[in-house]
């Protein structure tokens, strides 16, 4: 049996679409079988809510009088990239103020969403058409022309587990890692995670409409470091970070419940991004992929005390074990903790389901599939040390 996007959208229009989240579909298929499920279920909602460093926002600030062609720009002391056009800037989530790691671009983004005034300081060399050389002003999200969240790499399809074999505590982007394998940190929301539920990118592609930070957003391309060629298990699930998504949406419509600034000690700032992706149940194969369980998702464990690009794998583990709170590593029981919020992701699957059922959110057929081949390249041609 095959269903089409328009057929499902018609059901959404009539408030007749049957939507389940990526947990509910597992039980439904177990109880009713694949044939009945593919006939009755139209959409499975998936989600993730975790720190996604490769996030940021394009802002158009509006023109002052006299006008300025901005060369350097700072928002609450955080530098934004100004090499675009006169008053267009890009603020990255991980840019931080000079004095430390506790406040960065992610926090400015959250302040803007929360309606706070943000201080803008800008410098320029001055031209005949843009004579102003210095500018100090305040901006608000409402008062500027555009604020377009554009995240080059979000939504990793699986990710490695981090631990620490050394005799000292280390602070990493995977969080605080205690000495002598004192704990292990993992990310991704396992069986709820979007690209885990569509391992061969049959429905998630360029143009897919998604829930992004509380607003409606879109997948604009594969993300940076998209790496789909890595090893997969028998169910086709990559055993480490594989596909990624570049996504965009209107920051003015977002909500800081689903877009939250954070700071990792001795590392820096990042942005927790809430992403929900609807998977249309077009056929049995797509349905079967959405029935993936935590126990069937495998990932590798790496020692983050080795400060190198490639680290040897200490073994593999599945997400059921990770979510149990303990894993066994070299015969030792090691406590686990997650960086992504499963509870929040579950909330997003529910919210997306509600919007679809109310006829407020329609699915979009991708205009291009994400690449199924290709490999991330290293940077080797280093000059000097």
């Amino acid at each position: 049996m095959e269903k089409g996007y328009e057929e499902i959208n018609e059901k959404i229009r009539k408030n007749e679409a049957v939507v389940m989240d990526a947990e509910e579909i597992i039980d439904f298929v177990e109880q009713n079988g694949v044939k009945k499920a593919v006939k009755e279920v139209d959409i499975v909602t998936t989600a993730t809510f975790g720190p996604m460093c490769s996030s940021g926002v394009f802002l158009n600030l509006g023109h002052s009088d006299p006008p300025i062609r901005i060369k350097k720009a700072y928002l609450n002391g955080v530098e934004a990239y100004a090499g675009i056009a006169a008053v267009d800037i890009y603020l990255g989530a991980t840019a931080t103020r000079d004095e430390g790691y506790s406040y960065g671009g992610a926090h400015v983004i959250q302040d803007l969403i929360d309606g706070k005034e943000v201080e803008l300081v800008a410098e320029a060399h001055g031209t005949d058409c843009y004579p102003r050389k210095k500018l100090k002003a305040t901006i608000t999200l409402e008062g500027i022309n555009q604020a377009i969240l554009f995240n080059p790499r979000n939504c990793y399809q699986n990710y490695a587990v981090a631990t620490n074999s050394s005799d000292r505590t280390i602070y990493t982007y995977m969080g605080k890692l205690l000495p002598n394998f004192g704990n292990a940190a993992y990310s991704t929301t396992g069986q709820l995670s979007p690209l885990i539920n569509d391992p061969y990118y049959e429905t998630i592609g360029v143009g897919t409409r998604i829930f992004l930070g509380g607003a409606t957003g879109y997948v604009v391309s594969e993300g940076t470091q998209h790496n789909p060629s890595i090893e997969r298990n028998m169910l086709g699930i990559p055993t480490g970070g594989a596909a990624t998504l570049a996504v965009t949406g209107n920051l003015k419509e977002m909500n800081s419940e689903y877009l939250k600034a954070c700071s990792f000690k001795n590392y820096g700032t990042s942005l927790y991004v809430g992403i929900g992706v609807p998977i249309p149940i077009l056929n049995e194969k797509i349905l079967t992929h959405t029935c993936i369980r935590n126990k069937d998702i495998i990932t590798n464990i790496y020692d983050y005390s080795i400060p190198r690009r490639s680290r040897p794998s200490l073994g593999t583990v599945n997400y059921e074990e990770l979510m149990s709170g303990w894993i066994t590593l070299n015969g030792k029981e090691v406590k686990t903790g997650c960086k992504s919020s499963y509870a929040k992701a579950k909330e997003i699957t529910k919210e997306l389901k509600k919007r679809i059922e109310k006829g407020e959110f329609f699915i979009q057929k991708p205009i291009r599939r994400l690449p199924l081949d290709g490999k991330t390249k290293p940077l080797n041609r280093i000059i000097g040390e």
Partner: protein
Amino acid sequence: MIDKSKCVDCGACVSLCRTDAIIMDKKSKKISFSEDKCIRCLVCVDGCPFGAISIGDNNDKL
């Protein structure tokens, strides 16, 4: 104590707690804190990316 208005229930703190004072509910996947089990070692405090954990006003056990 955990400031629930800042906490997103990620669980980064859970693996840092040696006494199971911070646990994640197996079903709801939400974090809960048990003051009775907390020994105020403070290992979890700087492990929270949202600054949601503090020792509160009760410093008796420090």
